């Protein structure tokens, strides 16, 4: 849009990018991890899948899945995106046998992506014990192969990074969130693809966002996405503003939104994604996290992890997660860097938190300095270092029923 705020390229701080390595994939994307995904296709296969993965979870076997038995185009799309994600090098699908998930379609799509894949149907393999044994044999063999896979140099422009906040407090919007915004500006200037999310937590910011859109049509689409979220939550009777936010100083959803919005930085918004859509170009994108159509299938995203999962489905190799109250979550397919808004919680949860933004409130560091810490941490993770949640074995994953229409042409104005 012509009146979008002008910006100058921020100088990239002196950070050594030389050790960043990626795993090249057939579709041209590169992974920063070479995980083996063990995916259950209905809750009834969850236990068997968990027992298959259990002995290998320190070595790169990651457990994901969908609990529902009824068909869901959305869940199929997300699991497909997870199993063909750049951080995934091989897949084991675990099915009970009578659920409605289109398991052969999923297996074929994974095979077409160039990844080794095996489908084990518990009802055809003699039950729990024999499926676990056969599954573990497959996982052990594939992990050996993945460990020996070649890597290639990685640039910041090879990265797709999402940001999410959970358990925000009154300092989030002053300290850690604008620091993430600064890191995002630096990443965009280096040609990276970044995304922020949760339209219900941007209520009140829609006009400002529209002013940052690269076309008036995209601006209108951003406003419509937030209006959809507002209407949806009014109908549900419960918004994305809760007890924890109140306890920590936030008084309304729109106050929470102003703070959450700071994570997006200051660069132009180039696209509006639905979960699983792959950004077609670099730059800053918003993800629309609310169902299309009338209220159905319940609360759009049941927890932070489902929202993170949706951004990972859209190709994020890494997530920057901010918190005020203190979150400990990780993610199965994309490592999470966690930043906290205040030093009190940083000290209390120091094992779990990667970056302390509380130093800004304490008068010790600037927003820019903390933003550079975040960028350094991103580079370290893309160079093979583990984040706190990875080192602690976190592998959160959540997927529930949702429903979307395909994104319209206004959502990707630049192709």
């Amino acid at each position, binding site marked *: 849009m012509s009146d979008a705020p002008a910006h100058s390229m921020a100088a990239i701080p002196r950070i050594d990018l030389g050790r960043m390595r990626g795993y090249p994939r057939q579709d041209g994307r590169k992974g920063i991890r070479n995980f083996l995904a063990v995916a259950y296709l209905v809750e009834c296969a969850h236990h068997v899948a968990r027992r298959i993965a259990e002995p290998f979870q320190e070595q790169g076997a990651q457990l994901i899945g969908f609990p529902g038995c009824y068909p869901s185009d959305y869940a199929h799309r997300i699991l497909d995106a997870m199993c063909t994600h750049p951080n995934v090098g091989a897949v084991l699908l675990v099915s009970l046998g009578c659920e409605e998930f289109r398991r052969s379609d999923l297996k074929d799509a994974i095979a077409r992506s160039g990844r080794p894949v095996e489908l084990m149907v518990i009802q055809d393999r003699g039950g729990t014990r024999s499926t676990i044994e056969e599954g573990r044999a497959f996982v052990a063999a594939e992990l050996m192969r993945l460990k020996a896979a070649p890597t290639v140099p990685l640039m910041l422009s090879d990265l797709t990074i999402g940001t999410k906040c959970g358990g925000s407090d009154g*300092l989030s919007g002053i300290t850690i969130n604008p620091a993430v915004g600064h890191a995002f500006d630096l990443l965009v200037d280096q040609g990276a693809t970044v995304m922020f999310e949760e339209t219900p937590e941007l209520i*009140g910011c829609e006009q400002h966002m529209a002013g940052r859109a690269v076309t008036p049509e995209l601006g209108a689409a951003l406003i419509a996405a937030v209006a959809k979220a507002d209407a949806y939550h009014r109908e549900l009777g419960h918004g994305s*503003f809760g007890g924890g936010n*109140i306890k*920590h*100083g936030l008084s309304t*959803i729109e*106050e929470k939104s102003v703070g959450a919005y700071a994570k997006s930085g200051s660069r132009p918004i180039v696209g509006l994604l639905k979960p699983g859509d792959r950004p077609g170009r670099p730059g800053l994108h918003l993800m629309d996290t609310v169902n299309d159509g009338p209220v159905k299938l319940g609360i759009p995203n049941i927890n932070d992890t489902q929202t993170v999962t949706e951004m990972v489905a859209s190709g994020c190799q890494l997530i920057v997660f901010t918190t005020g109250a203190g979150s400990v979550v990780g993610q199965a397919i994309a490592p999470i860097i966690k930043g906290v808004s205040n030093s009190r919680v940083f000290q209390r949860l120091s094992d779990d938190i990667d970056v302390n933004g509380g130093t800004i409130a304490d*008068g010790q560091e*600037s927003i820019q300095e903390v933003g550079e810490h975040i960028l350094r941490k991103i580079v370290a993770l893309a160079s093979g270092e583990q984040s706190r949640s990875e080192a602690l074995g976190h592998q959160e994953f959540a997927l529930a029923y949702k429903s979307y229409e395909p994104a319209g042409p206004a959502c990707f104005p630049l192709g």
Partner: protein
Amino acid sequence: MPMDRRANMVRLAPADNVAVALSDIAAGETALDRAELQLTARERIPQGHKIALQPIGMDDPIIRFGMPVGLAKAAIDRGALVHIHNVRSRYLDNEVDHYE
């Protein structure tokens, strides 16, 4: 520039009628930002919570970061805590919230 060490609150934009506590401010304590703002807290303002910089009338907007983040549902005195007991959303209020 880092925020001044002595400041215990921050006004995020010039038009704001509230400031945010950078650390816990006790009742009767002086609240000051890194510039010229200074006032006495009428009650305890926990870290991350808002303090009224001026009297705010019933139904007047609460302005933080230059953006309206709610409406006063009661008259608010200068130096008072600004939170859910005296602020309502222009969008959706959650009537039932649970936390310990």
